[in-house]
């Protein structure tokens, strides 16, 4: 059994030397991906292997997600997701990329389909996902909400 911590080690092959840099390479790749995701998809800087925790108020739990059902008469109604969909909501909130927002929309459609008892004043036609980010003024801590991302998805025909 090859072992850790043996001093009399065999001649060191070039590939072994290259492989020894794998952990550092993984860390650097992780940080690079983190920076790309923050820039391209507004990933929360706290997450994603960039070591941005305890550095910014843009923590994922500080982002506010609003799901709004758009009705045929022009009115809107906010939707609250049940616990079973919360994991998808948290991931989309942390990384509001197109892929995760579509998954969140799909989860919302599933929740709507599972709730036929909801009485809509008019026909639901679309779902809008808004993610807001809170920031705070220096000295006064006056909050300000900025819209991070907004997407609208037409409801599948069988959910209307």
């Amino acid at each position, binding site marked *: 059994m090859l072992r850790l911590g043996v001093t009399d080690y065999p001649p060191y092959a070039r590939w072994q030397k290259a492989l020894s840099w794998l952990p550092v390479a993984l860390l650097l790749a992780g940080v690079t991906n983190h920076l790309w995701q923050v820039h391209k998809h507004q990933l929360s800087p706290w997450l994603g292997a960039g070591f941005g925790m305890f550095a910014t108020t843009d923590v994922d739990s500080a982002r506010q997600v609003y799901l709004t059902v758009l009705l045929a008469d022009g009115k809107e109604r906010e939707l609250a997701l049940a616990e079973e969909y919360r994991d998808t909501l948290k*991931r989309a909130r942390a990384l509001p990329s197109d892929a995760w927002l579509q998954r969140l929309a799909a989860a919302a459609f599933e929740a709507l389909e599972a709730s036929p008892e909801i009485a809509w004043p008019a026909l639901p036609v679309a779902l809008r996902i808004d993610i807001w980010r809170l920031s705070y003024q220096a000295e006064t801590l006056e909050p300000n909400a900025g819209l991070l991302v907004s997407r609208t998805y037409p409801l599948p025909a069988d959910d209307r």
Partner: protein
Amino acid sequence: MAHLEITDRVALGARLTCLTLLFAPIGDWYLQPFVLVLSAAGLLFGDLWRSRWLWLALALLTGLRAALDWPLADNHAYLLAYWCTALAVAAWSENKADLARNARLLIGLTFAFAAWQKWSSPNYLNDVFFLTTFLLDDRFEDFVVLLTGTSYEQIDAARDYLEADYRSGASPVGLPFETSWSLLLLARASTLWNLLDQVLVAAAFLVPPASRLGRMRDALLVLFCFITYAVAPVASFGWLLLSMGVVQSERANGVHLWYLAAFAALVFYDQVSWAWLLVEAFGLE
């Protein structure tokens, strides 16, 4: 004896890593039992901590956990996977020098990026981050009440104000109380201390180990862990850093004992709500 001492640091680091995985179980139900059993086996069975297969399995499991939790995993979940990979590579190649180098660079780079994130953040250096964190994050409640005289009721009111719905852009009326000078001072001190300490640790671990600053790296890392994790409720991160740190530590007598002392201290920090006990003792609630 020198060989034994070096081997002991690697053994100690590997075993502390196993202990970290037992103290802070990771993964969902389909991963956690495997990690726990492997970690326990690494501690219980003789030289199993040296096994390439053990560390390969743990590297894969910790990496899988980070991937499955994407993007929600904490940053030390990734660092844990990198470190298990380093242990696996070292077990495969039987090279302790590369393991020590990986430990040093992983710690140095982690702190370097953490410090850079703080430096480049729009709301760190102006103390906004710590001011809002102390009012919003309930993990710091007891600490804030203890040190600043802010009451629990004031923190609850602040939280309601800071997290309200401001989509309409309505002008807020302001914090429901005046922030005390002690809270402002605590935020300032936390801002400066965390940035300074992380810059120093990063530099100490990234410069040549034989340099003057390099020789201070163990003391700086241990000090960081003693202070930071008394307040920040992320002991698992601290345990991981200490496990890595001891592997690359200086050969001077007693250095590894400081790592062990810090590891033990973090157990008490994790298990004992010392700030709450003091709040109760002084009748501050």
